[in-house]
C-alpha cells in the first residue's frame, strides 16, 4: 500500500481472479494472527490465573471491530469524501452501501489487479482487528472486560480509522498532493515528490498500537505487586505456538498488502522471512551477552520484533537490507523491554518495547535502507526525513487520542477490577472460568447457593439407583 489512491477499475467486471484469490487468502491469514496467534502469544506470557481474560481481549476485539469496520470503519478509512486529510465521511459508505458490486484496482496496475471492493474491505478489516488486539498486552491481569469492550470501538473509530485514512486513504501522511510530505518537499502531477513508505502498517498498526499501549499502561497503572512478585510467563510453549502462528499469518499481512500475486509480493515474502530470522538471532545474541542464556521467550519475542520492523519496509528493501533491518530490530527491542522496570510503568507484555520500538525503527529504517531513495543507497536524507515525520505524526495522534479516551473511561466506567480480585485472578472474577482444571475435586453442578438441598438429594438418588 505504498500509494494511497483507490481508483475504480477501468473495466468494471473484469476481475483478476488470481489477485482476488490472493487477497481473500491473505485476509484469512491475518485473521489467524489475532485468533488464535496473538491470543496464544499473549496468553502464554501471562500468569495462569489470567490467560482466559488475556485471550478474551483478542477475541473481544475481533467481535466488536469486525462489526464497527463494516458499519463505518471502511467508510472513515477509505471513503472518497475526505475531511481535512484526517478522516473520510463515515456515512458515505455506512454499512458498505454501494460497495457490493464495486471493483477496485488499489494501485492502478495496468492489465491486472482488479479485485472486488469487498475483498479489499475484508483484508482491511483484519488489520483493524489485530491493531486493537495488540494493545491488550499492556494491560494484562487488571482491566474490566466491559471497559475494554467499550474502549476498543472508541479507539478504532478515533485513532485507527483516522490514521489509516491519513496513511493509506489519501490523507495527510500519504503521498497525495495535499499531504505533509508534499508540503515539505513539494509535489509533481498530483503526487508527493517524496512519497512516505509504509507498505503494510508500521505507522498505522504498530506505532499506533504501541503508543496506545504506553498511554494505557500509564493511565491504568501497575499490576498489584509489579516489580516485587513473580510474574513469569506461565506457559512458554503457548508463547512459541503463538509466535509461530503470527509469523505464518504475517505473510498475509505483508505480502497480502501488495494486493496482487506479483513480483513485489514475492520480494515482500522473502524480505519478511529474512528480517524475522535476523531479528530472532539479534535478540538471542543480546540475551546471550547480557544474561548468559538464549531463551525461548526471547526467540519468540525476536520473531515478533522482526515482523513488526519489516512491516513498513518490506516492499522497498533488498533481502540483504532486510537482514540488516531485522537484526537491529531484534537487538533494539531486546534492550528496550527492560525500560519499563527502570521507568516504572507496567507495560505487562512489552507492547511498547516490541511494537512501538520496532515499529519506529522499521518506519525510519525504511528511509535509510530503501533501495530507491534510501540514505544508505545514496538517495539523500529526504526519504528519511519524511519517514521520521510520519512516525512522529502517528505517535502524536495515537498518544493524544488514546489519552483522551483512556481518561474519559477512567472517569466514567473505571478501568481496574478490585485489588483483592486481581490477586485472586481475573479469569474467575471477570469470566467465571478457570483455564486449567488440574485438581477437579470438591465441585458439583448448581448455582451460587452452594449445595442447595435439592441438587444434593437428587444426586444421592442417582447413587441409590446405581447400586
Amino acid at each position: 500500500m505504498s500509494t494511497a489512491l483507490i481508483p475504480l477499475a477501468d473495466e468494471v467486471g473484469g476481475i483478476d481472479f488470481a489477485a482476488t484469490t490472493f487477497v481473500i487468502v491473505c485476509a484469512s491469514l491475518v485473521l489467524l494472527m489475532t485468533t488464535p496467534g496473538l491470543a496464544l502469544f499473549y496468553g502464554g506470557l501471562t500468569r495462569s490465573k489470567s490467560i482466559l481474560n488475556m485471550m478474551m481481549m483478542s477475541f473481544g476485539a475481533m467481535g466488536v471491530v469486525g462489526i464497527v469496520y463494516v458499519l463505518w470503519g471502511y467508510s472513515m478509512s477509505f471513503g472518497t469524501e475526505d475531511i481535512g486529510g484526517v478522516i473520510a465521511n463515515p456515512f458515505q459508505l455506512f454499512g458498505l452501501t454501494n460497495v457490493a458490486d464495486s471493483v477496485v484496482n488499489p494501485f492502478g496496475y495496468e492489465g491486472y489487479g482488479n479485485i472486488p471492493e469487498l475483498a479489499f474491505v475484508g483484508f482491511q478489516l483484519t488489520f483493524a482487528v489485530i491493531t486493537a488486539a495488540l494493545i491488550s498486552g499492556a494491560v494484562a491481569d487488571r482491566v474490566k472486560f466491559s471497559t475494554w469492550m467499550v474502549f476498543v470501538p472508541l479507539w478504532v473509530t478515533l485513532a485507527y480509522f483516522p490514521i489509516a485514512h491519513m496513511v493509506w486513504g489519501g490523507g495527510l501522511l500519504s503521498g497525495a498532493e495535499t499531504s505533509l510530505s508534499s508540503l515539505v518537499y513539494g509535489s509533481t502531477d498530483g503526487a508527493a515528490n517524496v512519497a512516505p513508505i509504509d507498505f503494510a502498517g508500521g505507522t498505522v498498526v504498530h506505532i499506533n498500537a504501541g503508543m496506545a499501549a504506553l498511554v494505557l499502561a500509564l493511565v491504568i497503572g501497575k499490576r498489584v505487586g509489579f516489580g516485587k512478585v513473580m510474574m513469569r510467563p506461565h506457559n512458554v510453549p503457548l508463547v512459541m505456538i503463538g509466535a509461530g502462528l503470527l509469523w505464518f499469518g504475517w505473510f498475509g499481512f505483508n505480502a497480502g498488502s501488495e494486493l496482487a500475486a506479483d513480483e513485489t509480493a514475492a520480494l515482500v515474502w522473502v524480505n519478511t522471512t529474512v528480517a524475522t530470522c535476523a531479528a530472532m538471532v539479534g535478540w538471542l545474541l543480546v540475551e546471550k551477552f547480557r544474561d548468559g542464556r538464549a531463551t525461548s521467550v526471547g526467540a519468540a519475542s525476536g520473531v515478533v520484533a522482526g515482523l513488526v520492523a519489516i512491516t513498513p519496509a518490506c516492499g522497498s528493501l533488498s533481502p540483504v537490507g532486510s537482514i540488516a533491518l531485522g537484526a537491529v530490530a531484534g537487538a533494539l527491542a531486546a534492550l528496550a523491554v527492560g525500560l519499563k522496570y527502570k521507568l516504572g510503568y507496567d507495560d505487562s507484555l512489552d507492547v511498547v518495547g516490541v511494537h512501538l520500538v520496532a515499529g519506529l525503527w522499521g518506519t525510519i529504517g525504511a528511509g535509510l535502507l530503501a533501495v530507491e531513495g534510501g540514505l544508505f543507497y545514496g538517495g539523500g536524507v529526504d526519504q528519511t526525513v519524511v519517514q521520521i515525520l510520519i512516525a512522529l505524526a502517528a505517535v502524536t495522534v495515537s498518544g493524544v487520542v488514546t489519552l483522551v479516551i483512556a481518561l474519559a473511561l477512567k472517569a466514567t466506567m473505571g478501568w481496574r477490577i478490585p485489588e483483592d480480585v486481581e490477586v485472586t485472578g481475573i479469569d474467575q472474577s471477570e469470566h467465571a472460568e478457570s483455564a486449567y482444571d488440574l485438581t477437579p475435586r470438591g465441585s458439583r453442578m448448581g448455582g451460587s447457593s452452594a449445595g442447595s438441598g435439592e441438587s444434593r438429594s437428587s444426586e444421592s438418588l442417582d447413587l441409590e439407583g446405581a447400586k
Partner: protein
Amino acid sequence: MKLVTAIIKPHQLDEVKEALEAFGLQGMTISEAQGYGRQRGHSEVYRGAEYTVDFVPKTRLEVLVDDMDASSVVDVIVKAAQTGRIGDGKVWVVPVEDLARVRTGERGVEAI
C-alpha cells in the same frame, strides 16, 4: 509399625522404587512436592527480568513397614536415591500408632 517418609529427586524415583521392590515391599505412595534445603532454588530470566525460583520439584515417598524393617528400608532408599550431589533429599521414620486395611478391616501389622 513405622512410617518411612523420603523426599528425593524426582528422577531418582524409579531406582528407589525398584530397590524397594527388590527388598520385598509390596506398595508405596508418592506425591509431587516442592521444597529446598541447602541446595536452594535457581534463577530464571524472562525478557531480561531475572526471577529467583526458591522451591524446586521433589518427590515425596511414603511406605508403612514393620518395626524391624524400618532401618533397612531407610538404608535401601538412601542407597538408591543417592547421587552425591547437593539436593539429594532426606529420609525419616516416625512411629505409627494404629493401621487398618480398608478392604478387609484387618488391623495392625496384618494390614501392612
